[in-house]
């Protein structure tokens, strides 16, 4: 393992942790603006995390070790997955880091433990949230695989690093396949991060909640870990979309100026995407549970089309 790679590991993790609450705060702010509210301050997410870290953790008397382990496993899985998606600097891949299939299953591991924790506390809300989350993930999994397969076929590699390098080399954002991939990835992003047509990230009390339902029994530091891991997951899904579709500015060599420029550009592109996500959410109503698969079918349709075009043409 070269020093470059070790530096990459540190840099990527630090950046993703630092920037994640900003993006989710920005989405909240944009949604508030479109609804004519002022909304929470942009950095509110950071204050919330600090506050939660200071609070005491309380476990339900029914809770087992799963409840104690879940936030840590969740955060660890998401952070390892974050290493697979270079935000600003693409190093030479080392030992399977960057494999898109492993990436998908790391996200699935995090999700699995979150669902277990939802069940573990024994509250009925948590159980419902977990059951819904698992049904969604069972339906979305084939779609995700097809989208990632389309990516692998287009860039002729299973490695996310190689995909980013390939997309940086062509540098065009307006090829037909990339537009279709962009749409499919956007739908995957919305589903994976529990955003509006699928789940409502705002509510803790409605019967429709999925992701928040599983977090109801979490408190203190554990809740902070869960919230942070959700924000990090959002950031890496956004980075996947951004760096594939608009890769300009991504650094291939480790220089201070290049990294700074790339980081600045990434924050800029990420903010634009966050605004788009916010507007998308504000213009949509939450779909009924049984209509959500039509959203997945759209992503499935587009990515299968890509595979047909790429394989046959």
């Amino acid at each position, binding site marked *: 393992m070269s020093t470059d790679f070790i530096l990459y590991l540190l840099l990527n993790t630090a950046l993703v942790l630092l920037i994640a609450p900003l993006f989710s705060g920005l989405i909240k702010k944009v949604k508030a603006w479109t609804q004519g509210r002022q909304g929470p301050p942009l950095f509110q997410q950071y204050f919330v995390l600090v506050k939660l870290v200071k609070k005491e953790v309380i476990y339900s008397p029914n809770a087992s070790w799963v409840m104690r382990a879940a936030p840590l496993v969740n955060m660890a899985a998401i952070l390892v997955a974050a290493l697979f998606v270079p935000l600003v600097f693409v190093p030479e891949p080392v030992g399977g880091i960057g494999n898109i299939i492993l990436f998908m299953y790391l996200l699935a591991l995090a999700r699995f433990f979150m669902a277990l924790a939802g069940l573990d506390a024994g509250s009925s809300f948590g159980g419902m949230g977990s059951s819904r989350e698992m049904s969604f993930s069972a339906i979305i999994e084939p779609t995700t695989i097809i989208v990632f397969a389309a990516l692998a076929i287009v860039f002729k590699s299973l490695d996310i690093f190689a995909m980013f390098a390939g997309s940086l080399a062509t540098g065009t954002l*307006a*090829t037909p396949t990339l537009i279709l991939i962009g749409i499919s990835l956007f739908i995957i992003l919305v589903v994976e991060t529990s955003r509006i047509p699928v789940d409502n990230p705002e509510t803790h009390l409605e019967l429709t909640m999925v992701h928040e339902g599983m977090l109801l029994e979490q408190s203190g530091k554990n809740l902070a870990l869960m919230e942070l891991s959700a924000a990090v997951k959002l950031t890496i899904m956004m980075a996947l979309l951004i760096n594939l579709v608009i890769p300009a500015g991504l650094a291939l060599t480790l220089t201070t100026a290049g990294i700074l420029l790339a980081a600045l550009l990434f924050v800029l592109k990420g903010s634009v995407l966050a605004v788009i996500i916010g507007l998308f959410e504000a213009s949509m109503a939450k779909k009924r549970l049984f209509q959500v698969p*039509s959203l997945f079918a759209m992503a499935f*349709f*587009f990515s299968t*089309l890509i595979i*047909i075009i790429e394989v046959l043409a």
Partner: protein
Amino acid sequence: MIESAFLAGLIKVLFVGIIITAAYLITARNLMSLVSVYSLQSFTLVIIALLLYLIEGSPVLLAIAAITFASKVLIIPYFIATIQEKIRIKRDIQFHFLSPTSSLLLSMGLMLLVYIALSQVMEGIAERENLFFFGSVLGISLMLMGMMVTFSRKRALTKVLGFLSMENGVLLFGLFVTELPFIIEFLIVIDLIILVLLTTILTVGLDSTLEDYHKRLHRFHLWEDTEEVA
């Protein structure tokens, strides 16, 4: 002079636009946005015709672009939007035979089928004239997708939209493969306008008797009598 490779790239991007609008026409439930998506699809066709004119330079394409713009981007969507406002139907959530999700999956299979069939028929063209081959595949697929909208929707208005999008497919196929004579294109457009006019009437009263139908026209404010009927 703009490079024709660049123009061909632009046209391919617009193809994606057409696929997206076609998928939306199959799945969307809101009538208002269905109409605007149809007019967006027609507008994409107008731009494709203009870009083809820049590549090929045949003036018929300009005429087709103009007539498509006037009829399918402006007049027909305006008519449908007006009717829809009057009959106060906002959504179409009823489907026959196929749910939107299964129609999407089916249309994927249809596209594959069209692709394979056409690559057998036009052997050799696929490699030489990539753009024209894709244009024709997309044209026929759009036709079939429009057909699926026509038979899977329940409301007359959305059936008409499906039919109109079928006609867009014919136009796309005509742009890329055959030299559709302009007069035929013109006649098709006139047919379409008449169809939409007829639909304005049929949408309101297909299932009623003639007496009842007159009352309904009043109810939906489609017919304003100067004298009050006693």
